């Protein structure tokens, strides 16, 4: 994405997270962890968990009985984001609405269930209703099906920058006229196989084993949830008199290596963002290289919003929550950078314009 392409506008926000299902910005203050009860653990284990809720009470008419939690959250979050825009989808050409979904682990709970059915009954007697729902793209398909959206439907991922990539792909579809409106979603659901992997690999923060209140910077605590943004081409967003632009995405750069500072300076074209929102990649100590890069680009006086533990716990798919949390935390305007780093020189940077 180059700086001279027309920007796109974020006009709606919805989410399902430990904060609950919400349209628009998130409430101030950090969210708390909860004990894991969905499976048997060897002692206390905590994570940032979505508390059970009745989807139909949030989105009237929504039936989720046959869906896993992840797909249900995608439906609720997308519905809340659309509601937040004020758009009536019945007044929109839904063949021009895209869905771009980012996930690191896909429908991992149902993948577990499918393995369980194979373990119990043999591979020749697995559950046919579960199999199609194990696909990583199933939640995005449900979003298209529920809202009747017939534009492009894409599920993407990246070990560190899945959320950023979803934003970039959606912006690309809008800019090239392949859609007028895009619903961008990113997130994951926490399952036993995933949490156990983190635990055996030694990645969990001590706070996962502790009932005391959580310090803000206490390392990696796994999270779950889905964030949804509605994006429109600026032309379209400007036409709607009731549109509320949260941010415009002006340009982006992402690479797995190279010269991050040089590439980002080239992208921002000499301007210095007044604010940098540090995204994370889910691994411990993710903040420091990102912060250092932010200071290298914007100087020591730049305002830097550090990653919040909840969004850090969404490995690779936390970018949307990082952005929503930053927009929710304080009144901000001007140019901002959504920035993440990974490995020796991997980075993702999106240049935003905040109204």
């Amino acid at each position: 994405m180059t700086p001279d392409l027309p920007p796109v506008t974020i006009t709606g926000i919805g989410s399902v997270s430990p904060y609950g299902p919400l349209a628009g910005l998130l409430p101030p203050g950090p969210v708390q962890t909860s004990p894991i009860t969905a499976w048997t653990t060897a002692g206390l284990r905590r994570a940032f968990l979505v508390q059970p809720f009745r989807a139909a009470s949030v989105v009237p008419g929504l039936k989720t009985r046959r869906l896993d939690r992840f797909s249900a959250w995608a439906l609720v979050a997308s519905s809340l984001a659309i509601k937040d825009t004020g758009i009536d989808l019945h007044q929109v050409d839904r063949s021009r609405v895209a869905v771009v979904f980012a996930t690191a682990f896909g429908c991992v709970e149902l993948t577990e269930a499918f393995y369980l059915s194979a373990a119990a009954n043999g591979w020749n007697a697995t559950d046919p209703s579960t199999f199609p729902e194990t696909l990583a793209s199933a939640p995005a398909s449900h979003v298209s099906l529920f809202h009747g959206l017939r534009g492009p439907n894409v599920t993407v991922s990246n070990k560190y920058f899945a959320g950023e990539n979803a934003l970039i792909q959606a912006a690309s579809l809008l800019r090239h006229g392949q859609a007028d409106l895009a619903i961008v979603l990113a997130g994951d659901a926490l399952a036993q196989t995933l949490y156990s992997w983190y635990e055996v690999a030694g990645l969990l923060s001590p706070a996962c084993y502790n009932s005391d209140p959580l310090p803000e910077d206490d390392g990696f605590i796994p999270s779950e949830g889905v964030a949804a943004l509605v994006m429109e081409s600026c032309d379209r967003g400007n036409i709607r008199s009731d549109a509320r632009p949260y941010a415009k995405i002006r340009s982006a750069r992402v690479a797995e290596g190279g010269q991050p500072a040089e590439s980002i300076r080239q992208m921002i074209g000499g301007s210095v963002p007044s604010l940098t929102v540090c995204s994370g990649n889910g691994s411990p100590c993710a903040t420091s290289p990102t912060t250092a890069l932010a200071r290298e680009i914007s100087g020591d006086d730049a305002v830097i919003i550090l990653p919040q533990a909840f969004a850090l716990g969404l490995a690779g798919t936390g970018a949307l929550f990082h952005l929503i949390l930053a927009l929710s935390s304080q009144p901000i305007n001007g140019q901002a950078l959504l920035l993440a780093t990974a490995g020796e020189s991997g980075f993702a940077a999106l240049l935003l314009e905040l109204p």
Partner: protein
Amino acid sequence: MTDIHKTIVVTGVGVVSPYGIGLDCLQAGMLSGQCCLAPTKGLYPGFEGTTAQVRELPLLAEHSSSRYSRTDQLATVAAQDAMGNSGRDGSTFRESGIVMANTVGGLTEIDTGIAKDPAAWYRRPGTLLQGASYPFAHVADAVGERCGILGPRVAVSVACASGAVAIALAANMLLDGAASIVLAGGSDPLCPFTLSGFNSLRALDPDPCSPFDQNRKGLNLGEGSAVLLLETLAGAAARNANVMAVLRGWAMTNDAFHTTAPQTQGIGLADCIRLSMEMAGVSGDEIGYVNAHGTGTPLNDIAEANAYETAFRGRKHPIPVSSTKSYFGHCLGAAGALEAAVTIMTIRSGALLPTLRLTDPIESPGVDWLRGEVKRQPLPLAMSVSSGFGGGNAVLIFGSGPL
């Protein structure tokens, strides 16, 4: 007038298929009418069926911090084949983008033991790394790590349309200027998880499949990978690259109809075909051949036939269509990429491949179901069509040489 900065060209094709490694190998096998589908036993205890397997896949060297699943290995060998055949030094690709599709990820590395006690399973030697290969993003990482590519990297999973969607997104990336070269494609292996899943849905034909036949009974699974080197015509000219084909148009739609079944009239797919032709600036009369999704399942093939009737209505002659899944099965997340490779091969050879075992085609007056002998004719434009669970559709239009 052609805008060389907005014209996307194919400058390399890498293939791993049941025929072996390379596009030449694929072409020789298919043109000779060789079918790779064969009776298969033992892919999991109790499995008996028909599949197409890749034999003699070179194994990638691993080190203490890496584990490459079969999906990773297929993809990496195909990427190396594409780069190797381009005649360019590996360093050319250092800042390239990677868009790799798959649906299976590292499921080949995980057994049912994980379900009963995941923590105990991960404590077995090597299993932490096996588990780490599970995310579908791992395949793009494997290609990047093994090929020394550090540009933007995107993994794609859109069920059986994945491979074609990866190519479409890569084309968008090039238009955005996100990279000057993008390696785009798909990869998927045979594995108990997917074989069991399609078996549970009763979607498998126990014998070699018969796409578009009135008596079709289902699909056969195959495995493989294909990777295209994509760049702008301006970039290709600057690098003096060999242009194998032009990606003239691409489009993606969703049926928004059902989680597994296609919309019966093929409306979403017909829209996708129409949009791709609009982007290419061509009419239905100009498309000389369609490489169909053609799985051989009752629902897919009738919906697809209906889509062709709608999208090509008004054509002077029936549209020539064949399904090359009748040669090497349905390779899931790799299918769209492999079939893009076959479509490019068809344009370059002018040899339109028939659907194998098609004796009693679906009645569809607007479609010329290719069967019997290979049909030879100049082919300036051809289309590759993909669909998948969840209603995803993707269509790619390729043309011969520079415009």
